[in-house]
């Protein structure tokens, strides 16, 4: 008898919420291009605008701030390239972009591209051993020549090790010189309180499939007074900075998911953090030298993230052995052409190559139960033992 899957990879993607499925299916049977002028078009447009208002309402933004995109990667690209180009066009001295060494590849790769192909001076600032941006380094980088900084981009919470970043301090620092701040909040929304206006950031990325919405839809929330150059040119549907016929069912579903997940964020976080703490405690009981990476459990860590190092193991072996037992997680390392690379996040935190390869990321979510934790705790001992034997060969 095959046991049900234990899905502990919610940070990769989380199952859709029933309200999101319902909102999507309701719209799938309708017709109407939101740019059309007739009744069907107006109906589609109404769904889009109501969705925009719903999202704005729960994340502390104005509806006009919300620009729908195809998801996190597009939003990050739009923010980084779009704001950089506009800021540099206003003042050619603004060639620097400051960011952190632990950003997601959706931020790092556009930055590398801007540096290589477009003359940007990108500085990836160091982090602490807990995976938190070094604010002194940021301040020093800004103070060196504030007038040349086009943009600062720092993620709200790290996707691998779950450490929350000091966004308030980043914003305060940037405000001294009126430097715009972008944050990738893909992992944060629905997990920790996120209020766009209160945070003071100028642009914020989020995506549907991490909050119980569909794949392929997300948004860049960006203040109206921030100039953003377009990446995708066409009909100019979204504030003239993003073109393409709007995906009405996906947008309706996204709004339903954002509303539901933000509304229940607090109780979700309490429940999931409790399961996570139980998971970490019991895994360490079974494997005494296992240890949590990132910030300690508490207000500075994503509630569902347990990123655990297992000395003497290869993350790949652990993942495969757990997978064979129906337990799904992530090594937390990026795959380059199918070849696992040591995590740039762990390397930036000061781990050596071995440490950067010996970890697993368990990420808990809205469907996670006590039984899932029990199953993992039951399996982890023999799995680690096997992986160690394989490593020792």
């Amino acid at each position: 008898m095959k046991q049900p899957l234990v899905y502990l990879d919610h940070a990769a993607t989380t199952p859709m919420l029933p309200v999101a499925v319902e909102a999507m299916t309701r719209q799938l049977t309708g017709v109407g291009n939101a740019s059309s002028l007739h009744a069907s078009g107006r109906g589609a447009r109404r769904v889009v605008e109501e969705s925009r208002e719903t999202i704005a309402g729960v994340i502390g933004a104005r509806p006009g701030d919300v620009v729908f995109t195809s998801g996190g990667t597009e939003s990050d690209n739009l923010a980084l390239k779009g704001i950089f180009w506009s800021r540099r066009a206003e003042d050619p001295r603004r060639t620097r972009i400051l960011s952190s060494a632990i950003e997601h590849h959706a931020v790092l790769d556009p930055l590398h591209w801007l540096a290589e192909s477009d003359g940007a001076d990108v500085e990836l600032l160091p982090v602490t051993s807990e995976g938190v941006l070094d604010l002194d380094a940021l301040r020093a980088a800004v103070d060196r020549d504030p007038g040349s900084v086009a943009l600062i981009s720092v993620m709200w919470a790290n996707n691998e090790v779950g450490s929350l970043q000091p966004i308030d301090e980043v914003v305060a620092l940037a405000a001294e010189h009126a430097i715009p701040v972008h944050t990738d909040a893909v992992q944060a929304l629905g997990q920790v309180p996120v209020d766009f206006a209160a945070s003071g950031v100028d642009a914020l990325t989020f995506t549907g499939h991490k909050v119980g919405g569909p794949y392929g839809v997300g948004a860049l929330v960006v203040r109206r007074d921030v100039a953003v150059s377009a990446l995708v040119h066409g009909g100019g549907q979204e504030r003239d900075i993003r073109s393409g016929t709007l995906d009405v069912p996906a947008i309706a579903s996204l709004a339903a998911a954002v509303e539901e997940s933000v509304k229940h964020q607090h109780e979700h976080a309490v429940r999931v953090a409790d399961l996570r703490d139980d998971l970490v405690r019991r895994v360490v009981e079974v494997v005494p030298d296992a240890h949590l990476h990132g910030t300690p459990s508490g207000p500075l860590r994503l509630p569902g993230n347990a990123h655990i190092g297992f000395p003497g193991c290869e993350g790949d072996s652990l993942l495969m052995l757990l997978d064979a037992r129906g337990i799904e997680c992530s090594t937390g390392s990026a795959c380059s052409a199918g070849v696992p690379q040591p995590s740039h996040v762990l390397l930036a935190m000061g781990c050596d190559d071995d440490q950067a390869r010996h970890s697993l990321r368990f990420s808990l979510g809205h469907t996670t139960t006590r039984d899932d934790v029990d199953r993992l705790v039951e399996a982890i001992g023999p799995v680690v033992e096997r992986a160690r034997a394989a490593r020792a060969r």
Partner: protein
Amino acid sequence: MGRPLRVVAAMSGGVDSAVAAARAVEAGHEVTGVHLALSRNPASYRSGARGCCTIEDSNDARRAADVIGIPFYVWDLSERFHEDVVEDFMDEYAAGRTPNPCLRCNEKIKFAAVLDRALALGFDAVATGHYARLRTGADGLIEMHRASDHAKDQSYVLGVLDQEQLRHSLFPLGDTDKPAVRREAEARGLLVADKPDSHDICFVADGDNAGWLREKLGDRAPNHGGDIVDATTGERVGSHAGTYAFTIGQRRGLRLGVPAADGKPRFVLDIEPVSGTVTVGPRERLAVDHVSGIRPRWCGTVPERVDGTVQLRAHGAEHRAVVVVAGDHVEIDLLDPAEGIAPGQAAVIYDGTRVVGSATISATRPVVVR
């Protein structure tokens, strides 16, 4: 079929390994597909659809695993592969020898690093798409035999496997010919059914061996070039940019300025890596009737003497031979002389269709021309 095993199917992305994996499943085994990533930077290795090292090959392997319905992972063996196969390949050429990296890969990677990891992780065996047959002999040892399709037989490149490795190996294609494997792939809905065979060395882009070596060997000593000398006259008949571009028995690409006195083509007879001298001469002088080998590897019991046959290069002919084993050396008397035998290649020793073992050719003795 024996008891069901937990099997790692090494899947290159080609048709053979895909069908081998499917057959292992059908035989009742619990199979996990594994693609070996052999290059850290896949784009630097061969592009195109013939290799086993490209991103496309990895995707082909993944899709085959999907169709077969087995789990699939990529294992990163790039460091081991570089150390054990690529470095060795360069060292051998630098020493004026002609290595066969496929044997080395089987010995050190597929049936060593991969097998070790698989066994440690709880698997029982590694299955590959090699064309060779395994059977249990009267003495209870696993015997390896040539494939039934002699044109596709790959027992030569497996001649380095010892009993322990053979005991944990599965070659599900040994009884089948290649066209049948392609038909079976098609029938199973495997999209790689008509993918071309790979022939060249997987880590050498475009099959340009000399170009690859020129770049990789850089300033290493034997790369400095030298004279091409005619063995008959002792005359310098040309020059070259590096001994790595030559192999014993080679005829093409010599670019000799002075024609042979008899007007007949000349072949590479000898490569002297230190002086850089490449000796050429007439075809008759390529013939050898004795081969010495080192680093022997035995599939089963170590023999003292074998009256059998040897194969001296991949896809080469079989030569009747008497093989005498003396510790770490083997001495092979060829009853049928062979031509163009290059040190560094493997001599694989057969008793009928059974592979007895192999050795790396260290020296040859020309037939005395009477």
